[in-house]
């Protein structure tokens, strides 16, 4: 039968044709092709039988993660400014694998992470008496607290709630007029910072117009001619200080490099978070169709095991399972919305979609568009993970870039996150959002954030509540399609479902965001 997700074993193992023009890129590609295809030819079909070579070796990976959780050798000093990431990679990977931490360990995680919280707001890469707050460890710390903490006195969430205003002030101190953010004091501007900030601002109920100002234009300018996104965009003309409101479109900007999986993930997820915020003509549009095309083109051929590469003509690497694969459900939803808008504009009522008149009036019954096929090869990505990305059986455990590379926490976390995306079919559901909207109680919430400038806040309490409600409803809009599971290598290989955009499990996301929006 014709399948839309063929196995590597059903596909011809053809190399990238040379066109009689050998170059370094071709040589490196050929080396990777033989490295991976050799491995596939030596191992049996994953679906044929359950044995140690074709199962997800959860026990070994747990051992691997545990081996660097309680004590790291001195060579890890290069990650001394990334300790919140070491925590996040471990606790999120264990969450995906379904390994529960005992309460004592959770308490240790919470108390460790809270030491990274600066009294001036934001988390550093290590204890606050050693390191400046930085946007990236702030994401890693907050997500780690979402996973291991709780509402009890020592659970970390209360401490986080008390630090909201300072975290916001730190965020505003990172803001640049062009809409970019420096990652730390005097630091670089790129979309990693934007993404980490927007996730935290969304989850902790910190969003204001002044924080969001021009962020959409910055992101849109990072999209390249290929459809993916670059690290940053350069503003060639600065906005005039007299009329900041009118200046946002006067920028000439240029993306600062080629499209890249990591930055595409950050940009798409950031843009997606912005789309939840009900501000007229916001966010400035991106080309979601081009982003989807770029993303699916990054999936490697059968001879490379069907993993994702991070840039055109580069090599497949397990970490892009998340950076590129994890962006595809987001692209899917953005493209669906574009189609819906087009249909609405052309006045046609699609046979499968009934048009909602206004986003805030989703009272009408709406049919989910069920006709979308899987947009990337979910089977092949799982095969890549099992066969090429797992460290050889009986060794250290852990997942890796590709055969021949050493496994590490970063690759383990991002490869497993991508595996979760490949196994589960998760959609942003308009029905779920409509339901959330109905149950939102605007009378409950934490103290409103005090904006930095007098005109930087929402125009009215009503507007603020409307934004809070929409943002909260959208955060909890991701649902797993029933019967949409597709697991290669037997049921034992099933991992838990991570949430697109945020990359923490839905069961962690919900209580956490509810705590900060005081909702149930």
């Amino acid at each position, binding site marked *: 039968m*014709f*399948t*839309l*997700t*063929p196995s590597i074993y059903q*596909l011809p193992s053809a190399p990238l*044709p040379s*066109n*009689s*023009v050998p*170059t*370094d*890129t071709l040589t490196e590609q050929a080396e990777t092709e033989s490295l991976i295809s050799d491995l596939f030819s030596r191992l049996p079909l994953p679906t044929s039988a359950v044995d140690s070579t074709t199962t997800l070796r959860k026990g070994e990976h747990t051992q691997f993660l545990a081996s660097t*959780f*309680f004590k*790291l050798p*001195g060579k890890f*000093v*290069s990650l*001394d*400014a*990334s300790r919140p990431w070491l925590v996040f990679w471990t606790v999120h990977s264990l969450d995906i694998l379904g390994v529960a931490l005992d309460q004592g*360990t959770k308490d240790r995680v919470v*108390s*460790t992470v809270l*030491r990274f919280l600066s009294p001036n707001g934001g988390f*550093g890469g*290590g*204890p*606050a*008496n*050693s*390191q*400046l707050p930085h946007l990236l460890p702030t994401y890693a710390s907050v997500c780690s607290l979402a996973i291991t903490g709780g509402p009890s006195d020592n659970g970390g969430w209360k401490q986080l709630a008390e630090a909201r205003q300072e975290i916001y002030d730190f965020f505003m101190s990172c803001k640049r007029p062009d809409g970019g953010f420096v990652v730390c004091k005097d630091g*670089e501007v790129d979309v990693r910072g934007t993404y980490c900030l927007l996730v935290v601002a969304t989850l902790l109920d910190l969003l204001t117009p002044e924080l969001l100002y021009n962020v959409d234009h910055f992101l849109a300018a990072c999209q*390249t*001619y*290929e*459809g993916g996104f670059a690290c940053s965009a350069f503003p*060639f003309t600065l906005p005039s200080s007299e009329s900041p409101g009118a200046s946002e479109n006067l920028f000439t900007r240029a*993306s600062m*490099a*080629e*499209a890249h999986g990591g930055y595409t993930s950050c940009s798409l997820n950031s843009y997606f978070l912005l789309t939840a915020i009900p501000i007229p003509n916001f966010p400035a549009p991106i080309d979601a169709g081009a982003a989807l095309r*770029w993303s699916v*083109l990054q999936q490697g*051929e059968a001879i490379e095991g*069907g993993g994702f590469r991070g*840039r*055109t*003509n*580069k090599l497949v690497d397990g970490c892009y399972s998340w950076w590129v694969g994890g962006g595809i459900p987001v692209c899917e939803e953005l493209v669906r919305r574009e189609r819906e808008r*087009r*249909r609405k504009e052309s006045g046609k009522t699609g*046979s499968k979609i009934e048009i909602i008149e206004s986003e805030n009036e989703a009272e009408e019954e709406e049919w989910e568009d069920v*006709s979308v*096929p899987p*947009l*990337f*090869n979910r089977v092949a990505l799982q095969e890549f993970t099992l066969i090429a990305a797992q460290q050889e059986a009986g060794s250290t455990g852990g997942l890796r870039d590709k055969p021949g590379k050493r496994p590490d926490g970063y690759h383990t976390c991002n490869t497993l996150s991508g595996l979760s995306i490949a196994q589960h079919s998760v959609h942003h559901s308009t029905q779920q959002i409509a339901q959330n909207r109905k149950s939102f109680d605007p009378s409950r919430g934490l103290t409103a954030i005090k904006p930095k400038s007098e005109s930087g806040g929402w125009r009215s309490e009503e507007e603020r509540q409307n934004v809070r409600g929409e943002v909260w409803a959208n955060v909890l809009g991701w649902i797993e399609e029933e019967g949409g599971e597709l697991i290669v290598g037997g049921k034992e290989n099933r991992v838990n479902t991570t949430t697109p955009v945020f990359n923490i499990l839905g069961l962690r996301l919900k209580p956490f965001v509810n705590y900060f929006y005081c909702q149930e």
Partner: protein
Amino acid sequence: MRCLADSKPQSSASTSHIPLAQRDQWSDVKPIAQDDGPNPVVPIMYSEEYRDAMDYFRAVAASEERSERALDLTETIIRMNPAHYTVWQYRMATLLALKKDLEEELQLMNEFAIQNLKSYQVWHHRLLLLTHISPEDPQFEIEYIHQSLLPDPKNYHTWAYLHWLYSHFYTLDRISDKQWADELRWCEEMLRVDGRNNSAWGWRWYLRVARPGADTGKDALKIELEYALRAVHHIPHNVSAWNYLRGLLRHFKLPLSPLLPAILPYTARPSTQLPGVPDDFDFPLPTSPLPKDTPLPIPLALEYLAEVLLEENQASEAGQVFGELSTDYDRMRAGYWEFRRRECVEE
């Protein structure tokens, strides 16, 4: 041009293991230990040297001491951990406060590069240095970056930095027409050596399309389309070249159909179905014969054909081509092409 070779190399940081507490120079400072709390997770078993240096760094930073010994300390730490953004920040602020010779610092960064001490921070530090040095002519830095791309022609940080370098100095009006022209030639040489280097394609896009002042008039655009097409004909399976071609058409909102005669041979449609090449077609055509090892059809050529058909309101024909991609010619992306097919059928 500034001659960096003349500047005195910075003495390398002390690698002796004499604890700072035993050095007279530091006798007035009380070290501060890392505040990890009891029983932390992910503790790193620091070397004595790193722990010692960090204990003194915390003390120095707490008192905001801007001094030579503080600079030495930051260098010691950065050499052990080039990703220590806090220490980098402190170093830059101290260099500025002490009005140090920043060209000497640039020289140190070159030395770091040779020793492969790589991080986001090394590049950002360099960017800040160039901003402060603000040379009248950044040519020496352009040449340095060109050199460092030779052994590592896809280093993302280096390419992003090159984009910044031209952008920043353009806003200061310090990039001459000759420099822009030379840069384009250098980029073309990179692409001649490896036409699959997507980083170099991205640089070409910046030089020819994205930067302010790029000539995007009709003639320049034709040259660009020809360049992209020739690259496709040179290496027909090169996704970089296809994406560049499509990027141009999309960016300038041009129809795809006029270039179809140059694409059709890659679709391997039976010749009876192919329209002939119009007499007035003046874009480069595929080589005849095609390069060896060029199996047909090329999926991206079929995609191009399908989008031409869509453009000409032949949705069902377009859907059929997308269908063939899904069922036969690009099975890895069967789901995506099926999605494109359904769009044609449903809309």
